[in-house]
């Protein structure tokens, strides 16, 4: 264990401290690292760290990682549009926003992620995916997998087993893709279906596709086998040792500044606040005292905060002062159930203690919060 960590330190130190005349000939060409953590935020932070800090001229890097259940949306996507947030909260599934573009994916331990780090000039997505296909075919020659024009890997020409996204910076670039080995398809399909109607946005939409696990095709395949096969193929192509270095994303001495990156990825401002501007136009059906009320709600949300809020209530259903207070509080606050709950309950404290008023208010607020 100690030897392993010392070894990994040595490997990382050779990346970080490599002088121009690099004498670590075994390290030249490529490096394969695997994360020991299953926290999606930590793993995404490692990707950012390598992209920002590592010199990829001398060697390219392959980063292998797996996450506990999480939904990862693309850089310019709208989480309300892409997934069922209420279900996510109920099932305690994390939501993360990555820095690369592309669509929404569901990660769990049956899904492996591969990130290919290269310099900007050597950025080649097709080559990377062909490497993965080659590795799969080497492992199971009868597997019918091929790469499409949209940089997906299809199984049996029909089922998508891998999706791709990329990020290009000034000098370095990375291309990451998933590989479905044995993920929970039921949770995947339920979580990636948004109940939201009436949402207008210019955010990048996801293209839904039929998915299938490699496990279903060949039950003898496991995630570890796939990781190993891909690492072997990478090692062959880059003429390096087939040796996977394990790294701990929480290690601040190895990756200075990583905890800040991890924290940034978890903030509300990043996950929800980076959503492009969108507008909601929906109708709440509220059942109140044996009658159904149709209440039209129109909201404009920018940077995750409500800019404009219009609620079309029947006349005198709520005292006008209270209604205007509600609208005023909502404007400028986060489009977030927690914050809205706090605000509306505070407003309730300040209004007259009337049971009917309270029940109407609670009904309206519950329905509003259900939107978020």
């Amino acid at each position, binding site marked *: 264990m100690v030897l392993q960590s010392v070894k990994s330190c040595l490997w990382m130190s050779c990346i970080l401290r490599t002088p121009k005349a690099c004498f670590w000939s075994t390290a030249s060409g490529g490096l394969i690292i695997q994360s020991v953590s299953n926290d999606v935020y930590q793993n995404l932070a490692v990707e950012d760290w390598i992209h920002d800090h590592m010199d990829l001229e001398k060697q390219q890097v392959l980063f292998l990682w797996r996450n506990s259940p999480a939904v990862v949306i693309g850089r310019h996507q709208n989480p309300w549009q892409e997934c069922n947030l209420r279900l996510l909260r109920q099932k305690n599934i994390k939501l993360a926003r990555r820095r690369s573009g592309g669509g929404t994916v569901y990660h769990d331990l049956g899904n492996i992620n591969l990130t290919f780090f290269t310099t900007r000039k050597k950025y080649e997505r097709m080559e990377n995916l062909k490497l993965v296909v080659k590795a799969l075919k080497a492992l199971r020659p009868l597997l019918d997998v091929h790469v499409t024009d949209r940089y997906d890997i299809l199984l049996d020409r029909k089922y998508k087993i891998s999706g791709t996204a*990329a990020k290009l910076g000034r000098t370095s670039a990375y291309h990451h893709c998933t590989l479905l080995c044995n993920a929970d398809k039921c949770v995947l399909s339920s979580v990636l279906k948004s109940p939201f109607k009436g949402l207008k946005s210019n955010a990048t939409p996801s293209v839904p596709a039929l998915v299938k696990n490699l496990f279903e095709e060949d039950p003898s395949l496991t995630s570890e086998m796939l990781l190993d096969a891909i690492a072997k193929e990478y090692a062959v192509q880059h003429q390096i040792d087939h040796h996977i270095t394990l790294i701990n994303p929480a290690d601040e001495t190895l990756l200075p500044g990583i905890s800040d990156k991890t924290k940034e990825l978890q903030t509300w401002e990043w996950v929800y606040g980076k959503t492009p501007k969108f507008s909601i136009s929906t109708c709440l059906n509220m059942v109140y005292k044996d009658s159904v009320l149709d209440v039209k709600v129109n909201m404009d949300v920018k940077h995750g905060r409500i800019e404009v809020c219009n609620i079309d209530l029947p006349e005198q259903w709520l005292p006008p002062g209270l209604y205007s207070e509600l609208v005023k509080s909502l404007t400028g606050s986060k489009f977030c159930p927690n914050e809205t709950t706090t605000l509306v309950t505070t407003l309730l404290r300040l209004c007259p203690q009337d049971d009917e008023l309270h029940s109407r208010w609670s009904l309206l607020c519950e329905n509003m919060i259900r939107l978020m």
Partner: protein
Amino acid sequence: MFNVNLPWRILRLCPVARHLGEEVDPYLVTITLPAEPQPRACCSGRRARDFITRVWEWPGFSRCPSRYCGPGKPHAVHRRTPCTATQGCGPHGNPLAVPPVGVCGPRGPRPLLVGCGGAAAAGWLCRGCVRGRSARGKMAAVTALRSSCRAAGRLVCIHRVRSCSSIRFIKSKYVCVFDKSALKFSHQQRLFRTSAVSCGQIVQFKLSDIGEGITEVTVKEWYIKEGDSVSQFDSICEVQSDKASVTITSRYDGIIRKLHYSIDDIAYVGKPLVDIEIDASKGLASEEDVVETPPMSHEEHTHQEIKGHKTLATPAVRRLAMENNIKLSEVVGTGKDNRILKEDILNYLAKQTGAILPPSPKAEIVPPQRRAEAVPAAPKDKARKIPVPVSRPIAFAGKDKTEPVTGFQKAMVKTMSAALKIPHFGYSDEIDLTQLVQLREELKPLAEMRGVKLSFMPFFIKAASLGLLQYPILNASLDENCQNVTYKASHNIGVAMDTEQGLIVPNVKNVQVCSVFDIAVELNRLQSLGSAGQLGTSDLTGGTFTLSNIGTIGGTYAKPVILPPEVAIGALGKIQVLPRFNSKGEVFKAQIMNVSWSADHRIIDGATMARFSNLWKSYLENPASMLLDLK
């Protein structure tokens, strides 16, 4: 040797001539030019032609400033070839074809000057060599010149004059600097000026190639806006193309003058993305502006090693470091991507010398390696040699930050503003929890077996409920006009909770019918929901009494604020081990906790509060007595 005699009225317009003619008869000027100027291979390196009047070959002349020449390439004035420029003289200095009639003017080929455009300094203008708007101005100038020196006849090219061979050029003794600043025409000055370079040069930063044959991308986010200043390598915008997200960084230092696209527009590779105004004095920063620091030794700081060989710093910062003999690899960069900023260099200097020194070439600067040992000696040396200002305040770069009040803070503002209307009074006391601590230690494993974490709060809450049964006024609510008091039947005791976002107060409903274990279960549920940010409206509304356990963080006595529409609140301090006297007069170790109550003095008086507090205290000091009153 050639001599040219020109009337002063013409030649006074030419600074060259003015210089030359100073010592001569003002009405008769003789300009001498070298007889056989060495033809030189300029103008795109062709074979030297037999040029005559290459004014810039005169001693002291610089290259033809005409912008039509192309950078650094003066163009020739041909002896025999008339000026043929329709649009200037071509980028390589070669004159273009003879302009058709109409462009030359009705009187034939147009006169040529030395170059065009900026070569108006010579006082002659080729009409065809000007473009656009400036053409009109120069046309006007030509006309003015013409009209003013009708006696000189037609304005002709010098070479035309030459070829007439009736003009003699005397060798110039004067060193004339052929400079734009020498254009000192009175009213035509502004017309003869070349490109309008006011303070900086505006450069169009084009969208560079993304790779993989991609020609168009969508602009997703701008990190800057018009008027912002950017440094090299700062991120400008984020674009997306086919699942790839690209961060575009600036190549120049300067100020953003124009954004060519808005969000969600399609941007094309090779087309301008932003216009950046670069400071002319600084010049264009080179594309690969990285300093290759020497190979790292193992003693270097880790964060410098990370970047390999590149240390990011703008040219101004590099100059400052160079002047002060500082190795960039030694400086800690605090800017974006560990970029070294000017403040970092100044801080480094300050650390080394103990004061901020202005970068002075005369200063004896101790090399960085030896500075550690020489630190005590160095300041004294410097004090002697350089006049160091004694107390110079270190520049503080912090700025005030204003943010709108939203969310949890807004909720707190509203609640506490309303609470101001309630006249508070406080009552504090001290409670001996020795027996309770012991009881809890016994019950904790039992609760854990049932999967529940047992803290002190369930006991406090239950004791409070038992006290409220005796003093129901504390569980009441006063209406807005203070006309009616409503005695609430349910004891919904709120527990103040500190979450990441701020203060929330969920309440445990109907404590009067709950056991201590039930309360513990409910508290656990509320705590887990609260930390996840998933509390519902029902959890947060309907409270009648509140307890705030600020002692988990610290403190003894507090002054809590009542949350309307309630009328009382209690704040619990931390449990301390203090020496106390028992009934026999012996000192023993007691677990002491302080409690501070606040109540609405409009309906609650001090006596009621004191009695309630005593009852609550007695339940906690002797937990077995709670058994008697438990329902």
